[in-house]
């Protein structure tokens, strides 16, 4: 009888009746205290991380829907993983409707924050930093949502990732905005994803600023419906420090915005300055593949009006001197490999490699000035970006 009553109470406690706030302070035992709070939280609860430095030895994880993890600011609350001994990331989120805000991770041994199959997630004013700057020994991704529907990254800052600072993979309904990606191999990367809006970000000192990729051989393919607008893409001139073998290891130092494969992508109203290889690059998937489901070509890529400053003046390309001489000292801002389809607003200057086959290398390149048709009609923005309900969480 007594046991029955206790059981009933436990059942009642598991229903989200009243959201609770659990406050965690740094110091002795913070690994266990924080992880316990993440496990015992109920849907709707908020876990508050007081200001200070949390020295952690193992990855953290959250698997409860509807939880908010809130620090006291990305400079005030620091989860320090410098001494991490295990797990593939600093924080792993596998539940839906989670909000992560106002805290930082430093020096995670693998990825920073990974959210997998975590729908409707918000990253707000979160910072992930590898404090030693660009280094092949740093973790791959700073902010890493994957296989999720509904992703909002706002006000984030990632520095030093050996792959991509902010990486959204195999996901749908995505917004990445107001964020800073600095000194990563790829600043912001949207990969094998649909309906993504990348706007009002700063990408600087990366090898490549903003990458929109679609790759073969993955469970989710067919990336597209992407808008890259109103970003400041400046001085992405860090030598590529990705470990060889990874796809971004092929990104050329000095790439501003790059589209590889994908269908229906708009690039407009960006400020592109001091990206010495190519302010904008649109190419087919460059490697061989064996996957019938995959289309390697960039299709329906629209280059709108952008603000082009200095760029294309020191390209990391074979025959750079000859190319520079041919184009009068500076390459024009848009580089297309000539495969798939691309349109550009009047006045856009660029050059094409005029390739005729994807994945066959640059042997057949016959560079010439870009000749692209004007875009047909307005770009259809419908359904692109994170659901509005995610905005409501950070107002």
């Amino acid at each position, binding site marked *: 009888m007594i046991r029955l009553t206790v059981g009933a109470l436990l059942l009642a406690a598991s229903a989200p009746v009243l959201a609770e706030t659990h406050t965690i302070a740094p110091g002795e035992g913070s690994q266990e205290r924080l992880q*316990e709070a993440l496990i015992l939280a109920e849907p709707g609860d908020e876990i508050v991380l007081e200001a200070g430095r949390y020295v952690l030895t193992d990855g953290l994880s959250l698997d409860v829907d509807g939880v908010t993890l809130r620090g006291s600011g990305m400079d005030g609350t620091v989860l320090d993983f410098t001494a991490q001994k295990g797990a593939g990331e600093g924080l792993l989120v596998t539940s839906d409707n989670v909000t992560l805000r106002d805290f930082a991770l430093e020096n995670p041994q*693998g990825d920073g924050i990974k959210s997998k199959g975590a729908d409707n997630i918000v990253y707000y004013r979160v910072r992930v930093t590898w404090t030693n700057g660009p280094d092949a020994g*740093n973790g791959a991704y700073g902010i890493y949502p994957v296989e999720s529907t509904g992703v909002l990254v706002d006000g984030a800052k990632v520095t030093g990732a050996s792959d991509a600072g902010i990486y959204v993979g195999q996901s749908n309904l995505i917004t990445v905005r107001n964020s800073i990606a600095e000194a990563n191999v790829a600043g912001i990367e949207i990969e094998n994803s649909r309906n993504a809006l990348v706007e009002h970000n700063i990408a600087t000192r990366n090898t490549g600023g903003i990458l929109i990729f679609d790759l073969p051989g993955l469970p989710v393919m067919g990336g597209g419906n992407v808008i890259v607008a109103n970003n400041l893409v400046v001085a992405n001139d860090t030598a590529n420090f990705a470990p*060889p073998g990874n796809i971004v290891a092929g990104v050329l130092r000095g790439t501003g915005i790059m589209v590889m494969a994908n269908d229906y992508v708009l690039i407009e109203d960006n400020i592109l300055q001091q990206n010495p290889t190519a302010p904008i690059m649109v190419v087919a998937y460059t490697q061989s593949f064996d996957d019938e489901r995959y289309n390697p070509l960039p299709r329906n890529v629209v280059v709108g009006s952008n603000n082009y400053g200095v760029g294309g003046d020191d390209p990391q390309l074979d025959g750079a001197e000859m190319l520079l001489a041919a184009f009068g000292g500076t390459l024009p801002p848009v580089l297309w490999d000539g495969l798939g389809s691309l349109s550009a607003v009047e006045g856009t200057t660029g050059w094409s490699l005029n390739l005729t086959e994807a994945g066959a290398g640059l042997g057949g390149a016959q560079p010439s000035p870009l000749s692209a048709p004007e875009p047909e009609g307005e770009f259809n923005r419908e359904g692109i970006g994170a659901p509005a309900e995610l905005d409501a969480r950070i107002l």
Partner: protein
Amino acid sequence: MKRAFALLTASVLAFGGAIAARSTVPDSLPSVDQSAILTDGMPRMLSEFGFFADAAGRLPNAGLIPYELNTPLWSDGADKLRFIYVPDGALIETDGEGLLQFPVGTAIIKTFAFGEGDDQRYIETRLLLHRADGWTALPYRWNDEQTEARLAIAGGRVPITTADGDAISYRIPNKNQCKTCHSVDDAVVPVGPKARNLAPALLAQLAADGRIAAVPEMARIMPIWTEETADTNALARAYLDVNCAHCHQPGGGASNSGLDLRWEQSDPFALGVRKPPVAAGRGAGGLLFSVEPGDPDSSILVHRMNSNEPGVAMPELGRSTIDHRAISVMRDWITEMGQ
């Protein structure tokens, strides 16, 4: 009922000396507490379940079925004491060579221990409880005195000397990390007790006892990992299935990698042959493919199994040391693939 339990416990304690001398536990001992398995909660002590006749967990209740796996998960060389408890009269369904389908009320109990004979020490006991709304995973940590195991939902670290003499910081997983491996399509599931990885004698015994309707038909069973003469391909594929495929399969924790290391997978690309890395980052070690036939030194799979560094080491959870026999088997497997 509670009172009766207490009285029985007292009498057991009184005759503790006699009990310890016996090799089996008499049927008259208190039975497993079904409500602890079924009730939506997290008992603080392992002893509350009544799986063992003694708080120290050395005397399994008569209702517990001990089992071993042909090819087990590597956990820093820990010895594992595995038991299944199935409620009286309930039937276990079989699914060909796949996972046994246990009824609600089942508990799977696995104790991790280091040391030989009298020096053996229990470190942790992991439970999988089949409740009405699905499986729940709970980790329990043994105390230094070896007298009780307490719920450790946040996991922990314990200094251990392994059988190979390595001093390591052994990681007890937290409750979420249990799910990281024991999860398909976001639901917690058992991983180990698949018919193909259980001893034929055990399956025959379960059939004879009426716990399963019949021994399932199986095309091939997994090899015994410790048998030196076993076929390299079978050993490698069994090891990958048991140690890696819980994440590396569709719906698993590493599904986005596109790598599928299940026993039943036959597509070489899905198994990593000439497959480029996706999200491996520095874990790829500068290598181009998961498996490069004929060249284990160029295969990411060997590189990551041969590392202890977080961010590189695979599996990501559950080991702090390198499984050298596994490395040797993988190298042979990849070498033979090139011939």
